[in-house]
C-alpha cells in the first residue's frame, strides 16, 4: 500500500473517531475562546494596540489549542493497544505519523478558523482584507505545530510522565515556529500590510525539515 493511500485511510479513521466523540474539538474551542476573551480585557483594544499585542496572543491561544489536542493523539491508541494493530499492518510506519499529523493539522486549522472572527471582533482588527496571506501563515505555522506535536506525542505516549513530558519536549522546539508565525502575522496586520517572505520561508523550511526528519525516524519513534 502506498504511503499516501495508507495516510488517507488513517486520516479518515482519525476524523471519523473525533467527529463522532467531539471530545477534543469541543474542549479546545471552548478553552481557546476563553483565553482570547480574557486577554481582550487586559488592554484597551484600539486598532494600534491590537496590532501590537494581537498576533502574539493569537498564537499563544493556538499553542494552548495544540497542547490540548496533541496530547491525546497517541494516548488514544493505548486504550486497546491499537497502535500495535496499526504497526502490524504492511504499511510504511511514517504513514501512521502522517495520518495523525494531517488530522491534527485539520483539527487545529478548524479551531483557528472558528477563533479568527472572534479575534477580529474583540480586538478590533480587520482581517478580511488580509485573509489570504493570514491563512497562508496560519497554514504554515499550524503544519509546524501539528508535525512536531504529533512526533513528540508519539514519544511521550510511551513514557511514564507523559503529561509532563510533552510540553517539556514540545515548547522549546516550537519556539522558532511561534516566533516566525507571530512576526509574519504582525507584518500582515500592520498598516500597510506586509507579507514577510523571510518568515514565510523560515516556516516552510522548518516544516520541510521536520517532516523529513519524522519520515526518516518514524519507524523508531513508534517502536516499543
Amino acid at each position: 500500500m502506498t504511503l499516501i493511500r495508507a495516510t488517507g485511510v488513517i486520516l479518515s479513521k482519525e476524523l471519523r473517531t473525533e467527529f463522532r466523540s467531539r471530545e477534543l474539538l469541543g474542549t479546545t474551542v471552548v478553552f481557546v475562546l476563553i483565553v482570547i476573551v480574557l486577554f481582550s480585557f487586559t488592554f484597551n483594544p484600539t486598532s494600534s494596540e491590537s496590532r501590537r499585542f494581537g498576533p502574539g496572543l493569537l498564537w499563544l491561544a493556538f499553542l494552548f489549542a495544540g497542547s490540548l489536542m496533541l496530547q491525546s493523539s497517541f494516548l488514544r491508541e493505548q486504550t486497546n493497544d491499537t497502535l500495535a494493530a496499526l504497526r502490524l499492518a504492511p504499511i510504511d510506519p511514517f504513514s501512521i505519523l502522517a495520518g495523525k499529523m494531517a488530522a491534527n493539522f485539520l483539527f487545529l486549522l478548524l479551531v483557528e478558523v472558528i477563533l479568527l472572527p472572534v479575534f477580529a471582533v474583540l480586538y478590533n482588527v480587520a482581517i478580511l482584507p488580509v485573509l489570504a496571506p493570514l491563512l497562508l501563515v496560519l497554514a504554515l505555522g499550524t503544519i509546524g505545530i501539528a508535525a512536531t506535536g504529533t512526533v513528540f506525542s508519539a514519544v511521550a505516549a510511551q513514557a511514564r510522565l507523559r503529561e509532563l513530558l510533552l510540553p517539556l519536549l514540545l515548547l522549546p522546539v516550537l519556539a522558532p515556529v511561534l516566533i516566525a508565525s507571530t512576526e509574519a502575522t504582525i507584518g500582515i496586520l500592520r498598516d500597510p500590510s506586509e507579507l514577510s517572505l523571510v518568515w514565510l520561508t523560515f516556516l516552510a523550511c522548518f516544516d520541510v525539515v521536520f517532516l523529513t526528519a519524522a519520515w526518516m525516524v518514524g519507524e523508531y519513534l513508534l517502536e516499543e
Partner: protein
Amino acid sequence: MRWSAGARSNCCAIWSRAEPSRVSTPLASSPNGGPSGGTTGGLRIQFHEVEKRYGMRLALRGVSLDIAAGECVALVGHNGSGKTTLLKIVAQLTQPSGGKIEFHAGRDPLSLEQVKSRVGMVGHHTLVYEELTAEENLIFFAKLFGLENPAEKTRQALQPVGLSGRATDLVRTFSRGMRQRLSIARALLSSPGLLLLDEAGTGLDPEGQHWLGATIKRLRDSGCTILMSTHGRNETQGAVTRAIRLDGGKITQDSGASGNPREILVMAAVRESGEEGEQ
C-alpha cells in the same frame, strides 16, 4: 536492527520504502467461505540465538528454534517467561536485542514487508477501536492490509465470529468476549500465513473457546503456521502439534515437530493449577 529476512539490511529498514509484495492465493475452503478458514500458505520461522533485553532485564536468552510451515506451536510458561516477547518479536512489534529471525515461504526467504502482510495477531489487548463500529474497524484494517473489496471481506469475517447482527454497533457497547471475537476476526481478515495468538481465548465463553479451537484446527489443516501462548487447559490446545516451555526467557522443554506436545501442556496446566491452589 537485527532482523534478517532476505537481503534486507539495517539501512533498508529505514530507507527502503518498497511496496510490500502480496501473495494472493484464493481463500482455502471454510464452512463459511470467509477469511476465517483461509491462509496464503504457512511460513517457516527460524530463530537464531534471539535475545531481548529490557534495560538490565533479559526477557529472552538465546532462543533458537525452527518452526516449520503448518506447525501449530503452543508456548507455555509462567508470567514473564518471555512468551509475549517472543510473539512480539515475530510480529515485528519489537526488535530483538541480539540474534536474528528468518522467515520463509516454501524455499523463498521473505522480506519484512512480505512477512507483515501475511501475519495476523491476537494480542493481550483487543487491538480494535472502541469509537468505531465492528464493521468500520474491520473495513479500516482491511484497507490498511490493501485487501480488495474490504466491505465484502468484512462481512465474511464477521459471520463466523457471530457478530454479523452487531456489525453497525460501536465496539464500546460490546462485552469483553465480543471484543475478543472481533479481535480474532481482525487477525484473520487478511488470511494470514502466520497466526500469532497471545492468550487469544481470554474473555471467551465456553462456546467461543470451542469455536476458537475449531478455527485454529481448520487454519492448521489449511497450512497456516500458528504460534500461540497459552495458559492452563483450554479448547485451543486440541490443535497443538508442538509445545515449547519457556522459563526465564530460555527454552527448557520442546516436544519437537514430531514429538507429543501433550506432556508439556499437561505439566503446564498442573503447575498452573498448583500455583492457583497455593494462592
